[in-house]
Structure formats: structure tokens, C-alpha cells
């Protein structure tokens, strides 16, 4: 398995040399949404705290970096960190309110949606940050201002972001942090009885997740050169963020990545063929149907199912038995 991943990584690194510029764009989107999905995965998948308002962190991160760049000329390379920090602060506030007041399940979902919408409406109404029309960033192509002529640079940055988020998730998964998150997700009270400070770990997950998502906001802003409150803080973006890890496998390391590789091309295709004027809603219908489908037929996501299928066939070929039942879970590291 390790070798397959390394090989895939090498391929991805080499790809821009042979891809058309449209394909490069597609991959940038795959990596970017994979990154956002992985960041969400830390709190939504591993910790099991469903947030449907993660767009708020993208918005905070993006707007912060953009405003700092426009008003003070601060390079977005630093602005990204400030944006991430502010997003983490918002995440801490939402987390504190939600976890201290014992909001679980759909109450927590409502909390996150409410915060995201409040941010959206507030930003729409503040002319100093561009109001409903948003902000525009003038294209200078200056790398120190996080702008590049060659879109292949964006490709590598997006890939790096996705790898960073995945590395973070991996580091969390194998240590006490991740194990405790899984326990909290399974049964918070039982975990408490075993010495797990649920509040602390949920907060940590929320802060890490929102920080990373905030970083993504800056990328978004300086890749697309425009920010609108409805796009950057809106529910459609939150849905884009969560659908990939959910379809791919929430709470797994490769789930968000797999989900993005599956869904992003599909979304782009539907946008191409159906997206003539206002029909961009069409791909959201597909998302809705997919969500329903996943819940009904594939609740743990595509990646775990795939892994089991591969294991079963591998076991069968090794032992020569057509149907040997594998261990109910893969071996621990």
C-alpha cells in the first residue's frame, strides 16, 4: 500500500509537464478541495463533530489576507498565517460555545450554519470590506504577492497544501490525540470515564481544522482574484467542503482525497454541460442525491469499502482460499 502511495505521489509531481492547462486547473481544484476536505475531516470525521459552516473559515482567512494585502500591502504569504489565525479564533469561539453548552448532533450543525450565515450577511453589509459585490485583487503576477503567471505553480502549492493537511491528519490519527477523538466520536461519556478530556480534544480538533481551512481561504482569494461574501461564506461552499470527505470516507486518511478525485471531475463536467446560466444548481442536486446514496448504501464512505474489497482479494490470492474472512479491522500499526 505504501508503495502505491509513493508511486502516486511521484506521478502527481511529474504530471504538470504533460498536462494541458485545462487539466492542470482541474487538478488544482482536486487538490484544493481535497485540502479543505481533509481539514474538515479532522473535526468532522475524526472527532465526529459535524460542521456545515466551514465556509466561514475560508471566508475569514481569505478576506483577512486580501484586506491586509490591499490596505497594507502585506504579502499574502504572511497574510495567510494571519488569516488562518483569525479563522482559528472563530473556530475556537464556535467550539467553545458549542462544546461548553453541550451542543451535539444537529444542534451543533445548526450552530455552525448560523455562524457562517451571520458572517456572510455581516460581510455583505460592511462596505469597508467590499459589501455584497466583494473584493477584487489586481493581477500583478508578483510571486511575493502570492501571484503567479504560470498556473503550474498553483498546482504545486495546492498539492503541497493537500499534503500538509493529510500529514496533519496522519500525525493526529496515530497519536493519543486521534485515538481520543475516535473514542469521543464513539461514546463521549464512556471516553470521559476513561480519562479523556472531551472538551479539550474537541476544541483542539476544531482549532486545527479551522486554522487549516483559513489557510485555504487565502489560496482561494489569490487564485481566483475575487472574493464575494455569498460565495466565500455561503452554504454551497460548506457543502462542497464536506461532501468529498463524506463520500470518500469521513474519519479516514485517504477518504477526503479519494472523494475529491471522484467528485471534482464530476462537478466540473456537470458545470460544463449543464452550467449554462443559472443551472449551476444542477450539480448541487447531484450532491444531494449522492449524500442520500452514501448514507443509505455506503455510510463509511468509498475508501473503507474499497480497502476491504482489496484486502479480501489479496487474502484470497495469498492463501488460495476463495473466501477467507479477513479480520474485522485491519491490523494496528
Amino acid at each position: 500500500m505504501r508503495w502505491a502511495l509513493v508511486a502516486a505521489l511521484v506521478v502527481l509531481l511529474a504530471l504538470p509537464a504533460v498536462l494541458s492547462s485545462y487539466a492542470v486547473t482541474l487538478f488544482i481544484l482536486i487538490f484544493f478541495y481535497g485540502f479543505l476536505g481533509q481539514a474538515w475531516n479532522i473535526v468532522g470525521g475524526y472527532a465526529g463533530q459535524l460542521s456545515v459552516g466551514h465556509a466561514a473559515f475560508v471566508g475569514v482567512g481569505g478576506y483577512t489576507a486580501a484586506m491586509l494585502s490591499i490596505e497594507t500591502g502585506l504579502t499574502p504569504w504572511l497574510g495567510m498565517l494571519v488569516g488562518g489565525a483569525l479563522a482559528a479564533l472563530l473556530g475556537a469561539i464556535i467550539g467553545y460555545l458549542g462544546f461548553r453548552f453541550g451542543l451535539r448532533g444537529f444542534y451543533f450543525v445548526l450552530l455552525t450554519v448560523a455562524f457562517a450565515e451571520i458572517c456572510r450577511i455581516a460581510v455583505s453589509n460592511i462596505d469597508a470590506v467590499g459589501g455584497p459585490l466583494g473584493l477584487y485583487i489586481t493581477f500583478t503576477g508578483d510571486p511575493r504577492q502570492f501571484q503567479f503567471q504560470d498556473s503550474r505553480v498553483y498546482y504545486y502549492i495546492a498539492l503541497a497544501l493537500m499534503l500538509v493537511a493529510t500529514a496533519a491528519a496522519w500525525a493526529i490519527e496515530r497519536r493519543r490525540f486521534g485515538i481520543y477523538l475516535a473514542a469521543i466520536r464513539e461514546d463521549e461519556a464512556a471516553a470521559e470515564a476513561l480519562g479523556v478530556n472531551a472538551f479539550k480534544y474537541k476544541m483542539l480538533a476544531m482549532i486545527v481544522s479551522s486554522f487549516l481551512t483559513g489557510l485555504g481561504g487565502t489560496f482561494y482569494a489569490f487564485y481566483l482574484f475575487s472574493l464575494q461574501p455569498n460565495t466565500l461564506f455561503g452554504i454551497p461552499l460548506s457543502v462542497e467542503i464536506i461532501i468529498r470527505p463524506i463520500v470518500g470516507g469521513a474519519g479516514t486518511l485517504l477518504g477526503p482525497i479519494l472523494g475529491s478525485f471522484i467528485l471534482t471531475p464530476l462537478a466540473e463536467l456537470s458545470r460544463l454541460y449543464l452550467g449554462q446560466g443559472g443551472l449551476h444548481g444542477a450539480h448541487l442536486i447531484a450532491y444531494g442525491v449522492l449524500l442520500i446514496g452514501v448514507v443509505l448504501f455506503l455510510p463509511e464512505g468509498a475508501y473503507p469499502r474499497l480497502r476491504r474489497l482489496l484486502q479480501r482479494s489479496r487474502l484470497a490470492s495469498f492463501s488460495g482460499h476463495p473466501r477467507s474472512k479477513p479480520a474485522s479491522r485491519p491490523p494496528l500499526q
Partner: protein
Amino acid sequence: MDLTLVLQGLLSGLLFGGVYSLMAVGLTLIFGVMRVVNFAHGDMMVWGMYLAYLLAARGGIDPYLGFVACAAALFALGFLVQRGLVDQIVDSPHEMQILLMLGVALVLENLALVAFGPEPTRVRSPLAAATLWLGPIFVDVARLVTFVVAVALTLALSLFLYRTDLGRTIRAAADNTYGALVIGTDVRRVYAVAFGVGAACVGAAGALVSPILPFQPPTGLALSVTSFNIVIIGGMGSLLGAFVGGLLVSLAESLGAVFLKPSLKELLSFSLLIVILLFRPAGLFGRRPS
């Protein structure tokens, strides 16, 4: 500050509250019986509105008559959603139910977007133009009729739940699934009916409000939030709470509209939701033990 304006606002709010009550009653019924949080509630209501619009525009049927058809159509939708979808995941963790209803909401909202476009619509009704005067305050006849019909429907619903056999069965199943199963109730059918009734409420509410309120597909989210606000204030699962809550919230919104900028109305709604979420006593977090 004009007292007349305030009084006007209060009256408007009260009358509009009938619709909010009906909407909230539907949501609380669904939660009270099946412990399902219907994230698609607002979007279902918007479909009620669009159906009323179709009936009026294509069939020439006034929404004040057509609401019956809308209610029936939404009943079917609710029944199918419960029977076909929610029923399949009764044993799954609650997050699954949330995601499921989120998916339904996405489908409904964007189907409406694709079918009807993003522009606001309103339904023409001959009653919409008429007004009555009560001293210095005028009463929108449309709103009055809406209020009366909505309240009548809510009363009819409570009669249904408390006086008919099927209604009693639904309440029994809500209180105690296993008990209901033991005495041979087809619980799945009861649940489907309950969801259907809840959806019918919102279908009727949508039709009734379509001449008064301009609507577009994204309205669904705002309506869902308002429904959650009302139901959480009034107590999840409490019909009376939903009814009273609907009137109160509508009054508050109306007064707010008198004093505040319209774009801030939504902001207030969401802020209110957060405050309610934080300060509702933990006892409302009533998940049915498995």
C-alpha cells in the same frame, strides 16, 4: 416613532404568525414522533409555494383553495421520504440522519432552482389587493384569511391527533415505540403518515403564504431556520409550544422590521437561533434511547 406603525406591525405580525405556527407545528410533529430533524422543512414549504403558483398560473386556482392540493402533494412527499429513506437508517448513528435530510434539502432546493429559476415569484390572488380598515390601521385581507385558515388547520390537526384513532396511534408511537409494536401497530406506516402530515402542514402553509410573501428557492433555508427557532423555543415535540412560538416569533420579526433595516432581519434570525441553542435547557436534547 409612530404608534400607528407599531400597532400596524403588531397586527401584521400576529396575522402572519398563523403561518409560522402551522409551519412549526409540522416540524415539531416530525421530530416529536420520529426524532427526525427535518432540515428540508423550509425547502418543502417553498415547494408548497411553487405548487400553489403553478396551480394559480396554469390552472387558475386561487391559492386559498389550492392549498388543499398542495397539502396533499406534500403529504405524499413526506410519506415517501420517511418510508423510502429515513426508515432505512433507523439503526444508524444520528449523524447519518442529519446528512440524509441535508441531502434531501439540497435536492429539493436545487430542483426548484433548476425548474423555476432564481428570480423571486409571487402568486396573484384577487384577495391580495383588498384591505379592511380598523380605525387608523389597515388589515390586509389576504393576511387575515391566511391567518384564519392556518389557525383552523392547526386546530384540525390537534383534533386529528387527539380525537381520531389514527391520531392517537401516532401519539402512542411517539411516546413509546416498543409498546406500540407490542400491540401490533404498523409503526413504519404510522411514522410515514406522521411525516406526511408534517409535510402537509408546511405545504398548506406555503400555499397560504404565497400571495403575501415573494419567494425564491433560497428562501427555503431562511424558513428552515425560522422553523428551528420557533420549535426550539417552544420545545421540540410540543404542539402548543410550536403554535405559541410561531405567533411570538412572527410578532418579534414584525416589530424588528419596523425598527431595523431589512437586510438585518436575517442576521437577527440567526443570532436568535444561536442564543436559543445555547440557553435552552439540556433537557430538550431528548434523543430516544436505542
